[in-house]
Structure formats: structure tokens, C-alpha cells
């Protein structure tokens, strides 16, 4: 989508082939991402549709056979920030200063959730895992989705999110600690005691 991106000249047939074979196979992941960002099926649908229309419009900036999935995720993420987030007027609640200072602090390794155990996690057969993910602020939720649900590498995440790799790492670290805190609350409510193994 950058203006300086080298343009490829594709015939309509080639464009349609790229669209069908490289873009469309990711539609389930794209819809899941849209839904996890907005928590609304119609909004998720609009975001996905908008993403695919943009991808087709700028298809000549896409090099056939390269990382279509990362590019599509980037477009969707930007549509979400520019269109959806503005519309909903929900400011980002993440204080990055706080994130960075947390990451650099000495107590980053303290056991935040000593009571959380593998056994209690495996007993969570309802929506606990999904709800814990959904409870995170959107920027923390996003890095977990990209890394753990979709398997993107840090370098790809940095490109999708327009942030340095160091920030990807620190944001993931903080997001996972928050997720564990949430899961720990669920574990307690399920009757697991604070027992050290």
C-alpha cells in the first residue's frame, strides 16, 4: 500500500488467481481476527469485506507468492484503527510508558500467578480461555491473537503492527501476564486453592 511500492502489472485473470488462491484461503483467520477485535459479527464482516476490497484495489503492489496473510492482517488492523476505533471513540487504554517500565523492572520475573496450574487450566472446558483473551485491552489482545492463534513470527508482527520487534516482545510479555492473572481468577472461582505444587 506504500506509494513507493513497486507495481506489478497483472491481467484480470492473474488478479483473480491471486485473489482466489492467495487471499481467500485466509478468510476464516481474518474473520476471527475481526470478531476478536470488535466482538460483533456485523462489524467483523464489514472489516473483512473492507479488507478484501482494499487488497484487490491495491493488488498490483502485492508481489505474487509473498506473505499475503501478513499483508491482509495489516490492512484489517489499519481499517480497525482508522475506521472502527474512531467511530466507536474508544481510546486505547494501554499506557506504553507503563508497559516499558514494567518490562524493564526487576520484579518482572516474580511469580504473578503461583496458584495457576496446568491441571486447573485443563479443567476449563467452557469459555474461560476465550473470555480471558477477550478481557484484555485491544493492543494486548492483538499480539496474543497474532502470535498464539495465528502463529505469526515477531518480525511479521512488527510489520503488521508498525512497531519495533522489541516492543512486540515486551507487549507479548505483558499481555501474557495479564492473561494469566485473569485465568488465575477463573481458577480460584472454580475452587482451586492457592496451593504451591
Amino acid at each position, binding site marked *: 500500500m506504500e506509494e513507493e511500492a513497486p507495481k506489478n502489472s497483472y491481467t484480470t485473470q492473474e488478479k483473480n488467481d491471486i485473489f482466489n488462491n492467495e487471499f*481467500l484461503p485466509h478468510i476464516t483467520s481474518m474473520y476471527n481476527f475481526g470478531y*476478536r477485535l470488535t466482538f460483533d459479527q456485523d462489524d467483523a464482516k464489514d472489516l473483512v469485506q473492507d479488507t478484501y476490497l482494499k487488497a484487490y484495489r491495491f493488488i498490483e503492489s502485492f508481489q505474487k507468492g509473498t506473505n499475503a496473510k501478513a499483508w491482509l492482517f495489516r490492512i484489517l488492523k489499519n481499517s480497525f484503527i482508522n475506521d472502527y476505533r474512531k467511530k466507536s471513540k474508544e481510546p486505547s487504554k494501554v499506557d506504553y510508558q507503563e508497559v516499558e517500565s514494567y518490562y524493564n523492572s526487576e520484579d518482572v520475573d516474580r511469580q504473578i500467578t503461583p496458584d495457576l496450574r496446568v491441571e486447573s487450566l485443563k479443567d476449563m472446558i467452557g469459555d474461560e480461555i476465550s473470555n480471558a483473551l477477550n478481557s484484555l485491552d485491544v493492543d494486548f489482545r492483538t499480539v496474543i491473537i497474532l502470535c498464539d492463534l495465528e502463529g505469526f513470527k515477531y518480525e511479521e508482527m512488527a510489520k503488521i503492527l508498525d512497531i519495533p520487534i522489541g516492543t512486540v516482545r515486551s507487549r507479548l510479555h505483558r499481555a501474557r501476564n495479564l492473561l494469566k492473572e485473569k485465568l488465575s481468577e477463573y481458577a480460584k472461582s472454580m475452587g482451586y486453592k492457592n496451593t504451591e505444587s
Partner: protein
Amino acid sequence: MTNSVNPFILADGKKPSCMEMLQLILDGEATAVQQEYFRTHMDKCAPCFKSYDLDNTIKELLKTRCCGESVPAGLVEQIRNQISQNQSF
């Protein structure tokens, strides 16, 4: 027989925490040398040993429990129709 320099140490000389090392391992971002170092490290660090299983389980559960949304029927058709309409202008 002492371990060589910690291969996780960053360019600025900062020593990474256990959780930082573990994150790189579980995310598949560690080099072969880092993986070998961490394997030895886990033998001497019970919290890392415990966290390895816990964090790995969370990662797996996220993958299996949070990817279930199915694409609404007709969405692909809608997108195709929109594209062909745009093309005809």
C-alpha cells in the same frame, strides 16, 4: 564445565529474565544455541521448568479454543460481487 556466555544477552548487555528467555523458546524465536542453553538452564531452575508447561498449555489452549468463528454464509459472494461491480466502472 561451566556454561559459556548466555546467548540470550542482548546487544546492550542486558541480561534477560527467565520469562523473557522462555517466551522466545515457546514462540519458536530462539536460535539453536539459545535452545540448548535453555535446556540446561531448566535443569537448574525449577520456576522455569514449571512455567514451561504452564505457558505451553496456555498457548495450545488459545489455539484450540479461540479460533472457532465460522465465516458468515454469503460473505465471499458479497465480496466477489462488490469487486466485479467496482471493475465494471
